[in-house]
Structures are given as structure tokens and as C-alpha cells.
């Protein structure tokens, strides 16, 4: 199965990291400059790596994510994907090239699961049989038996199953990048955990560039290659988990990890 995905891509193996997504001094205000949801943010995301945007509600992480595929337009600054300014591309075509997984899942209740998974392919003009084949592959990849699930409708699936379908949909057109907006936030802790593990194994096989938004510190640590910590629209620190945990660059970062660190220490003492 993993081989199938490799066949789809040209081999992108290279020794030096190639920047795939760049945010250059991006700002966003919704009220004409009185306040900024995102202020002067600069970030790089390397090819095949997972960057987690971590912060609490209102810190601007979802806004930032949505600016990458132009669901929201930045007030200032530039965003480059594959070296090209996104502002110069047709937003609709841009979005079809980028996989997006929504917090509220956002599947279409009037379509079968099969059609839901293949919807981007439908937009790209693939014919029905190719779409079906691909949809079935993805369902299998996500651990959902196509024989059972392909013809079902949304209301017959549990939350966890629905979000798996959401991920399948995002992967259908084999995009290079995946944007994930707190995708497991609406699920219970056990399901969340299972899906995080699945995502980790997918990461290894698929080598996609992922930007993942969350407020959950443990999720950030589990899934990330690098973490970008946002607070009130500004970037506090970006680095690997070791870097941010051991060399916090601001009060906020220190505070952020102190509580879970204590909890972890307490947990370790017990076991």
C-alpha cells in the first residue's frame, strides 16, 4: 500500500532540507488595525516535516493556517508555497492542491462516504471508476473496510470514523501538504490517541509536509518535528521539542511547559 503512494510521487529524497512553505512577516487584523490576530509572523516549514502550531484559544494559530490556503487573506506579509507567492495563484486551484482536515470534520451528509473521500478528485475531473478505486484505497489506508463503509452515509459513522474519512478525503489527491486544524479536537481522548498514533505511522510512510494546529501540549510533542508556539498573534519560539522544552526563550514558553512537566514528573514518580 505504501509503495502505491511512492509511485505517485517523483522521488523527492534529498539530503538538504528544502523549504516547502514560508511565511514572511505575515500579519492579520480583522478590525482595521486596532488589534492583530497575527502579528509579523515568520515561519519556515521544511519538506516532509511536521510543524505544530501550538497555543491557546485566540492566539492566531487557526488564522495562520487559514491564510496558507487563502481561506483568510493576510493583511500584510507574504506566504510562499513551493517558492510561489500564494497571492498570485488562483485560490480555488491552490486549495485543491493542499489537503485540509477540519476541526468539525465537515463531511457532506448527503453524499456516500465513497463520494466524500473522492470529492476533490471529482473537482479535478477524474472519472468515476478511478475515483472509486482511489477512494477505496484511502479507506483501507485509514483502517476502514471499503466493503462496509463505501456506501454508508455520514450519520452511520462514529466521530472517530468520520474524522478518519476526513483525513482520507484530504489525502485523496495526494497533495504535498496537509493542513490540519485541531482535527482530533472534537473526539474523545481514547479515539484521539488512536488517531494520533495512526497519523504518526502515516507520516513515516507518506512523507508529507504537515502543518498541524493544536492547543494540546502532549499532542504537539507526540506529532511534531518542530513546534511553533504562538501567543496573542506573535511567535514566541520555534524549534524541536527538545529545544523548546530545555531552552525556552521566553517566560511564556517556560510557563507553558511547566505544568505538564510537573504532571509528567509526578506520573514518572508513580510508575
Amino acid at each position: 500500500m505504501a509503495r502505491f503512494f511512492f509511485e505517485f510521487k517523483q522521488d523527492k529524497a534529498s539530503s538538504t532540507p528544502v523549504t516547502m512553505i514560508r511565511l514572511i512577516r505575515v500579519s492579520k487584523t480583522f478590525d482595521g488595525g486596532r488589534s492583530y490576530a497575527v502579528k509579523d509572523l515568520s515561519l519556515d516549514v521544511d519538506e516532509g516535516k511536521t510543524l505544530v502550531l501550538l497555543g491557546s484559544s485566540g492566539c492566531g494559530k487557526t488564522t495562520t493556517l487559514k491564510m496558507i490556503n487563502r481561506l483568510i487573506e493576510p493583511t500584510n506579509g507574504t506566504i510562499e508555497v513551493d517558492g510561489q507567492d500564494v497571492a498570485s495563484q488562483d485560490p480555488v486551484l491552490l486549495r485543491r492542491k493542499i489537503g485540509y482536515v477540519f476541526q468539525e470534520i465537515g463531511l457532506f451528509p448527503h453524499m456516500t462516504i465513497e463520494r466524500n473521500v473522492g470529492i476533490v478528485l471529482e473537482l479535478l475531473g477524474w472519472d468515476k471508476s478511478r475515483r472509486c478505486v482511489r477512494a477505496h484505497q484511502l479507506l483501507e489506508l485509514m483502517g476502514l473496510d471499503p466493503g462496509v463503509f463505501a456506501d454508508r452515509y455520514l450519520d452511520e459513522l462514529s466521530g472517530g470514523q468520520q474524522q478518519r474519512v476526513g483525513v482520507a478525503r484530504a489525502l485523496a489527491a495526494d497533495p504535498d501538504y496537509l493542513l490540519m486544524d485541531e482535527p482530533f479536537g472534537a473526539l474523545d481522548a481514547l479515539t484521539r490517541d488512536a488517531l494520533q498514533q495512526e497519523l504518526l505511522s502515516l507520516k513515516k510512510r507518506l512523507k508529507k509536509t504537515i502543518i498541524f494546529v493544536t492547543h494540546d501540549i502532549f499532542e504537539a510533542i507526540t506529532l511534531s518535528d518542530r513546534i511553533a508556539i504562538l501567543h496573542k498573534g506573535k511567535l514566541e519560539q520555534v524549534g524541536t521539542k527538545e529545544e523548546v522544552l530545555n531552552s525556552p526563550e521566553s517566560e511564556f514558553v517556560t510557563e507553558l511547559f511547566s505544568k505538564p512537566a510537573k504532571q509528567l514528573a509526578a506520573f514518572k514518580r508513580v510508575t
Partner: protein
Amino acid sequence: MLTGISTGTAIVLAVPMGILASRVARLRGPLLGVIGILQTIPSLAMLAILLALTGKIGALPAIIALALYALLPIVRNTLTGIQGVSPAALEAARGIGMTDRQQLWKVKIPLALPVIVAGIRTAAVTGVGIATLSAFIGAGGLGQFINRGLALSNTNLILLGAIPAALLALVVDFATGAMGWSLESCRHRHLPKRLQAVLRTSAFLLPFFIALGGVIAYMSGAGITPVSSFSSPTGDQRPRAKVVIASKNFTEQLILGELMAQLIQERTELTVERRFNLGGTMICHGAIVNGDVDMYAEYTGTGLTTILRREVLSDPDEVFRVVAREYRNRFDIEWLQSFGFNNTYAITVRERDAQMHGWEKISDLIASAPNLRAGFTSEFMERPDGYPGLRKAYGLSFGEVRDLDPALMYEALAKEEVDVICAFATDGRIAAYKLKLLLDNRDFFPPYQAAPIVRKEVLKSHPEIREALAPLSGLLNDATMQGLNYKVDGKKRSPRDVAREFLKSHNLLNED
């Protein structure tokens, strides 16, 4: 059929309006406001307005009216449906790269569809109800039976129209519901595939079949009842010249219409199309002026005061001369010889009340008027030779005045629901219900000689009409007309039969 076409038109107009409204917030208020106002116009008024605007009677104004009424439920439901689509689905649709149009057709409309269909169902069902009213302006359909039944006080006829209309409403509701069901793919998941396909196609097409059936029924409905049929005396298949005869919506008019129609059929080569039971003088006049109908029986007094809006005159011959001259000059309409009776308005009371109070003439009522309840037709309430003029001429002011349907007012008087009505002097029910006509001692009411009026153009191309109708001139005096009216109102016979019997008894018809 009326419902089918109008609802279809409304759908084509309304759904895009609703979609537009969902996108342009500024439009919403004004759009819904305008359509809402249309909705509040009472159906009869709407039909009358459209009649005036389009200048036509029949199906066209009815269809326009029905389409206008169908707009509100459909637009509003389209708007509500689209606004009610889950925001999560909408965001996802945008986020995965659908264009606006794709979002509309692949997500918004399918998800809004149940609500939109509910709106269409509402529109269709209420359309059936309103459609029955359109018989008022000659649009035919089931409403004809209801109208005729009302005019003739014939409950069976009313039910003949009302019950099928009610059933039709149920059928339409079911059919549009089925159509909606067929469009929602997620509802049929438990059915085997082939059965699904069959059921869905048939459910979707159901309303179309019903509409088609409606059209066929409408067209041939002409053949079901005698009063609106085409008829050709010699059975010749060549297309014949046709004359359209109208009548107002009370018994005497139906009889006169039948007399004229049967005579023309018998004595000329023309075919006759009957457009009877039109709702009142103004509608008949409008129809003949713009050529929708060719002739009907009018009353000189009515022509003088209501159409020509002139001062009341008392001398019957003078009234006739004036009316004939003015109609010829202004409307190109000819008045033929009068039938011979004077169907004047007559203030009427119960006989026993008259005896008790010694009422003989109208001015006898002045003293008791504040204690009396009057019931007048809507037309009488508005005409210069009606209640407004009566009040001035006699100083009469009744305690209570109500609008009554002309077919029902005699019974209302007899049953003591009102004390005074303004009857038609030749109505058959006056004797039957023991009512008394009061003398018009101040000569307020003009004479109302009845005569056929015909469009000049038609008379020129078919002068034989004049000759065909000539025997009727002077043939009906007050008593005779009253007798004929009674046969229909009192004995519940059809105007057509009564007319035929009368003509035969005067050797004007061959045995057929």
C-alpha cells in the same frame, strides 16, 4: 392544470430569487417584503387587479396570480434552506477547493433541498385552493362547479367542485412529497439498487404526470359539462366561425345566456362558446370591450349608471336611446331589442313584516330604518344607482348593512337573518319565499330593460345574429321571466333545460 403551470413558473422564478437572496444580504429584506405584500392581497382582489392589468379573462391572469402567490413560500424556503446548511459543511466545501458555483450545486442546494421541497409543496397545495377562485374570472377548472353551485344555490354542484379540489390538493401534496423523496439519495439506502432506481424515477415524475392529467382534464372538462361545450348543430367537421357569449353570475343571466346561445346555434351556422358565470358587471364589460367575449345580456339602467356614469333618468325609452348611442360611440357595441322585462332593483322585505307595519313604498321604511338590518350585494353597495344613491334619495340609513351574495340573499331574508334586501324584481324566489317588493315612490331606480349587447364588429361580420335573436325581443315580460327564474331557483332545474323548454314551447327550436 392551472396549479401545475403556475407552480412550475413560480419554481423557475422563485428558487433563483431565493439563492440570490442568500448571497446578497441587502436584497433579502426588500425581496421578502415585496413578495410578502403580494401574499397579503386577498386572492379575489389579486385576480381582479390582474384582470385589469392584462385586460384578459380566463386562464392567463389566473396563472399569473397563482404564480405570484406561489413565490413567497418557495423563495422564503429556499432562503431558509440555504441559510440552514451546516456551517461546517460550507466551510469544508470552500476549503477543499470548490468554486462558488460548485459550492452551490454540490453542497448548498442538495442540503437545502428538503426545505425547498417543503416550500414547493406548500405552494402547490395552496395553489389548488386559490385556483378554484379563478373561475370567478372565467378561468374554468374545478372552481366552475363551485361558482355555478353558488349561483344556483345548488349544494351538489358546489360539492362537485369542492370535493375533487380537496382531493386534488391531497394528491398534489403527495406527489410533490414523492418528488422530494426521490431527490434525497440518502433516504433510500435500505432499498435494493434496482428498486431504488425504479421508485425514484417514478416518484420524481409523478407530479409531471399529474400536471399532464390536469391539462388533459382541463381541456376536455369542456366536454364534461354541457354549459361550456362547443356545439355544432349539423355535426360538420369544418372549423366554424365562433361567437363567445358571456353571462354574469346569477340565474336570470344564465337563462338569458342559454336562450341566446341556443337560438344562435339553431338558427345560424355559428358555433357558440359559453363563458358563463363571470363575476359581475365590470368583468363582463371589460371582457366584451377587449374582445374576449362577443355578447351578453345587459340592463339599460346598469349601463347608464355604472358603466356610463351618468345621471339617473326615469323614462325607459330615453334610457335605452342614451345607452344605445353611447355604447355605439364609445365602445363599438350595439344594443339589440330588449327582451321585454324590467329587472329593476327593488327594495324587498318579508310579506308579513310589510303587513304588520303597513309598508307599501320605500319611504315607509325611513322611520324604522335604524332598527333594520339590511343585506345588499357588493355591487349594489358600490354603484351610484345602489345604496349610496338610495341613502341620499330617501334619507335612509339602516342600522346594520352587510354584503351578501346575490344567490343567498333571498334565503337570508326569508330566514330572518336580515330584514331588508335589494332584490332583483324578476327573481323567482320573491313569490316562493313570500317576499314583498316596495314601491319606488321617489323614482330613484332607473329602468333596467334587459337586452343583448353585441360587439359591432361581430354583428357586421355575422348580421345573421340579429335575425336569430329577433324572436326574443319583447318575448319575456316580468311575469314570464320570474317564472323561468323560479323553475331554476325553486325547482332546481338546469338553466339549459329551462331555456330549451321555453324556446320549444314558442316553436323556436326544432326537435333534436
